[in-house]
């Protein structure tokens, strides 16, 4: 290929166009900042707007028959509302911790609400592994919707006045339950 004379290849030296530089920086830097600030954040982890608000009331039938249980009837005690399902492996794993906590934390009321599952499957599961606290069915998923549940397990910690103190997404360990209940107790 023919050789190129240096004069043709040299680039002209011109001053920096400040307007273009400023405009470019104005577009580029904020964009990069926004992207960088969002790194590491899980876009699927949505914070609950219910924290600090009164918990949505419910009155749901219990598995195994009997009168429906209303949230109102638990007023005056800290409440732990746990949404779970039999097809959810972490839910099954955390049940032991919840059962143990229900036994040890006497003044705290524990409630399990079934999410998108069948009564028969739930009944079968509880027959072999009783929870030690009431388990309620949620027809049409209306309570789950009211609590903004998007998956299981999700657990809500309410104080004695019925306000939501914390929403925990994912399985619970005994220590977490204890600390969150302590927070709910101290919140009044």
């Amino acid at each position, binding site marked *: 290929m023919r050789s190129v004379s240096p004069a043709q290849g040299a680039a002209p030296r*011109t001053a920096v166009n400040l307007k273009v530089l400023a405009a470019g920086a104005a577009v580029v830097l904020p964009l990069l900042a926004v992207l960088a600030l969002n790194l590491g954040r899980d876009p699927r982890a*949505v*914070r609950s707007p219910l924290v600090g608000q009164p918990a949505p009331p419910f009155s*749901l039938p219990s598995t195994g028959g009997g009168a429906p249980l*209303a949230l109102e009837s638990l007023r005056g005690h800290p409440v732990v509302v746990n949404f779970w399902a039999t097809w959810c492996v972490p839910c099954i794993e955390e049940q032991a911790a919840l059962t143990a906590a229900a036994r040890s934390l006497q003044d705290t009321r524990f409630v399990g609400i079934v999410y998108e599952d069948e009564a028969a499957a739930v009944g079968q599961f509880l027959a072999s592994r009783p929870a030690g606290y009431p388990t309620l069915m949620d027809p049409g998923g209306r309570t789950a919707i009211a609590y903004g549940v998007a998956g299981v397990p999700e657990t809500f910690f309410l104080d004695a006045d019925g306000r939501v103190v914390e929403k925990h997404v994912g399985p619970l360990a005994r220590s977490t339950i204890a600390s969150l209940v302590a927070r709910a107790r101290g919140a009044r």
Partner: protein
Amino acid sequence: MIAFVLALVAAAAADPQGATDPGPPAGPPLSGAALDVRTEEAAALLRCPVCQGLSVADSPSSMARNMKQEVRQKLAAGYDQEQVLASFERSYGEFVRLRPPLRGANWLVWLGPAAFLAAGGAVLLRTLRRPRGSQVRSAAARADDPAPLPEDPRLAQAIRRVRAMAGGSPPDLSPARKTPP
């Protein structure tokens, strides 16, 4: 049909979640085809929380179907669209509304395009009004201009016509010669 409506109203009245309503129903109860249409409209504005981006109207997941049913019941009870959307917002957060509500900083996303259009339009008009040849031209840039027209007037005219037909008359670098050959 009446029994259906009464059943809906009764179900709504016996609604265990009554206290999450943002105020009393704003309008009359709906039913029939109007209810279907309004349910679809409202569901299209709600984001299915488990589906990453799909609306409640479009998503086949069981959560979405439950939510759609909830929308339908609320609309049947007489709540208007804004109340229905607000009640879901209470539970899930602003995230569940697919159309950013007109408040606070959200105005930026609604007015941004219009502002951009206005600014761009101004730049465009200025570009079109700018007189020709007023910019500094470097030697290299000048080298890219088309060749000047030749001396011969007939030839110059022919070339000018060809260039115009080919599309785009370059800046007229030589005066048009109208003298006869």
